[in-house]
């Protein structure tokens, strides 16, 4: 029995360049990057050296403070380079990949009979544990905890996001295995939120042993944090775990074939992509190897040449990895859009700006509800203090007062942060607030700061 939850707040930004439902190619990068910076709040400890041979599933580095958690190489090959930044911060481990991937064979227990400890052991030693995130904070889960429940959002509602009903359509069996695995880790059950509109074709629709919820509404309805908040909000002292559907497919493969296979189908989308489509690849794939999809035409906006921004992830929450970067561990897409480094004469006062979308009705984009827009990275204004503060509430379907929470974070008031719901949000949940903010405040940075403070204080 599916329970239905209607969310009335939110916004689907009409971004041009959605991926067509076809898989263009299987991308095999010569070099694959594994990046400790993908894991929030992690202090990595390197286990390999340049020149070491590794297999898919070999642990490259571990969490210094929780050494049982390892992070694995998705391919086999040799460690080509260890890239470090300022103060020798570990940025990236580059693995030169073999022609064919050689997987470590893990001994996996029978899921039905296995204990929670046995399951955790396999997940930890294979490196797949990193896929398990915890709320509060959105960091890699602590294997010593028992979560109140595990939540999965079976759809991504972000702009141009991949359609999981398409990318995971053949993975239903693996996902069922993963559900059984997850059920071992919590007594609270596995909650799955599907898109109410398209649930019929979802590989999650016929799962057993899950608590199924249908969500309808605009983005961020697909954010797992929003779903948790509307099903059963996280209270002080509670921990829930979350996992992305594409990692459930990987868990299924781990427990059926005994391999660490995080190959995924990602969308390559955005207005600078010639023919937006899907490709299969592993995390750490070089953006260069996707570049053949990007249009080589020069783009001028107001007679000023604008380059491309390569984003691992979606345009709201992804990271700017650049043309030389690689796909992040948790990313399910690559977005390529125009840089907005152009001047626009009297832009703010023009009555019509046909090429631009606005949530506010102070522009006329509400007249063309079906239109899709070529977005770019222009800030469209200058940073100011909080002035128009009621606009955030319109895009945040959570029982939270965002401005008060943000101000508590800015004031470093830990008690207030806790009272106002810092445990219930991570950066992505407030990304739309940041998008609509007329004062151009970097809200996700503020949330990050709050979470970092809480982790430090609660340790």
């Amino acid at each position, binding site marked *: 029995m599916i329970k239905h939850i209607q969310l009335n707040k939110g916004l689907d930004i009409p*971004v041009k360049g959605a991926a067509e439902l076809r898989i263009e190619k299987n991308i095999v990068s010569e070099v694959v990057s594994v990046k400790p910076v993908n894991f929030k709040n992690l202090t990595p400890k390197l286990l390999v050296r340049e020149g070491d041979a590794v297999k898919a599933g070999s642990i490259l580095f571990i969490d210094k403070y929780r050494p049982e958690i390892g992070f694995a190489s998705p391919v086999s090959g040799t460690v080509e380079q260890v890239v470090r930044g300022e103060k020798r911060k570990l940025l990236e481990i580059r693995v030169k990949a073999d022609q064919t991937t050689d997987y470590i064979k893990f001994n996996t227990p029978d899921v039905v009979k296995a204990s929670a400890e046995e399951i955790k052991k396999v997940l930890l030693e294979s490196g797949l544990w990193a896929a398990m995130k915890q709320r509060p904070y959105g960091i890699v889960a602590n294997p010593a905890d028992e979560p109140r429940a595990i939540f999965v959002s079976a759809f991504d509602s972000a702009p141009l996001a991949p359609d999981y009903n398409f990318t995971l359509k053949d993975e239903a069996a693996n996902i069922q295995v993963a559900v059984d695995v997850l059920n071992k880790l919590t007594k609270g059950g596995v909650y799955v939120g599907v898109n109410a509109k398209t649930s019929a074709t979802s590989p999650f629709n016929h799962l057993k042993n899950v608590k199924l919820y249908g969500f309808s509404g605009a983005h961020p309805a697909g954010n797992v944090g929003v779903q948790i908040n509307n099903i059963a*909000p996280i*209270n*002080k*002292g*509670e921990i829930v775990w979350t996992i992305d559907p594409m990692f459930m497919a990987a868990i299924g493969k781990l427990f059926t074939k005994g391999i660490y296979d995080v190959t995924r189908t990602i969308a390559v989308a955005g207005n600078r992509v010639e023919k937006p489509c899907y490709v299969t690849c592993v995390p750490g794939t070089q953006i260069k190897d996707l570049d053949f999809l990007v249009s080589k035409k020069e783009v001028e906006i107001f*007679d000023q040449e604008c380059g491309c*921004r390569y*984003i691992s992830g979606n*345009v*709201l929450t992804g990271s700017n990895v650049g043309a030389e970067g690689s796909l992040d561990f948790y990313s399910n897409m690559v*977005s390529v*859009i125009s*840089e*907005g*480094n*152009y*001047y*626009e*004469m*009297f*832009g*703010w*006062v023009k009555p019509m700006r046909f090429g*631009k*979308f*606005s*949530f*506010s*009705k*102070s*522009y006329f984009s509400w007249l063309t509800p079906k239109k899709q827009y070529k977005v770019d*990275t*222009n*800030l*469209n*204004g*200058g*940073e*100011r*203090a909080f*002035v*128009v*503060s*009621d*606009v955030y509430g319109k895009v945040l379907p959570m*029982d939270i007062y965002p401005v*008060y929470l943000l101000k508590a974070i800015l004031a470093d008031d830990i008690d207030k942060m806790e009272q*106002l*719901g810092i445990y219930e949000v991570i950066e992505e949940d407030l*990304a*739309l607030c*940041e*998008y*609509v903010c007329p*004062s*151009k405040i*970097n809200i*996700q*940075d503020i949330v990050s700061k709050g979470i970092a403070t809480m982790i430090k204080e609660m340790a």
Partner: protein
Amino acid sequence: MKSLLNFVEKIKPTFSKGGKLSFLHSTFDAFETFLFVPNTVTKSGAHIRDCVDLKRVMTIVIIALMPALAFGIWNVGEQHSIAFGLDMSFIEKVWFGFLKVLPLIIVSYVVGLGIEFISAQLRGHEVNEGYLVSGMIIPLIMPVDVPLWILALAVAFAVIIGKEVFGGTGMNIWNPALIARAFVFFAYPSQISGDTIWVEGLNAAKANAMQVVDGFSGATPLGQAANGAIDFTTTTGEPLTLMQAFIGTMPGSIGETSTIAILLGAVILIWTGVASWKIMVSCVAGALGVGFLINGFAAPETFAAVPAYWHLVLGGFAFGAVFMATDPVTSAQTETGKWIYGFLVGALAVIIRLFNPGYPEGMMLAILLMNTFAPLIDYYVVEGNIKKRIKRSTIK
């Protein structure tokens, strides 16, 4: 456009850090961003941003003020022509009003923006757009005969004490425009009260013993009420109809008399979502609720017995409810809070009007008072959210 852009680019280093005129950085920046939406790109967080910014929001408010301004300009000429028995055409009235109102607007902007630029410069911030709106509102809530030096002082007081000491736009507690109005009212009571200040030329006429039309009185309806009259009259002594008050052909502050022009602005503000319809609606509800309640107990033939809906079309009620109570910075910021805040503004305005014989217009004080209490209202609304969170938690 290209050549202008090139010119701006060329002179930019002079104003940037290390340049000769770097102390004028904020000023340069303000003019640059006025001409061009800058080429700043997102550095962290969401890669794309909505194309609305504070400049746009403020522009919308200014557009919404235009009907009230236009009517006000015409009405200055209209009232003048009635007072002195002049036969003026529509164009002449508008031109007369324009010449009277324009200096007020210029003084307001020059003084206000001057202070904004200087304080942005001192702080090394970008110049904030907030004053663009305050600078237009302030002349509209002044009597047309206000001396320019008083206006300049009031603007300076409002911007410095009302806003900049708190940290600038977004940080202030009280609506800056109302601070200016309150300053004039309390600091220069002799220059800004009485029956002669609301119509251009009356003061001068009185001083020079010039001839005013027989039976002409410049008293506003609220002024008449304060003197105990309950049958409001027009300036020429005819009975004032509700419709006349609604259209606004009566003396008063420049922009406040015409409820219909203000409603046009309200439609723009509500449609664009720039101002909260909840505050406007609850403000009207508060005024009507308390007004009718008092009507029920009022002795006949007193101002308190005048039907409550009159309050909506008299004085600065409509202007305050639409343009000033809704200021997003100084009003309540929670959705529940807005209902309470708006209701109390409306209710208090009527109470002050009816029970404070010293001051016929209650709207200014009502809004300033509720500005003061808005954070308290929000505090209790947010506290409710906190209580809910604590209640469902097992660990306290």
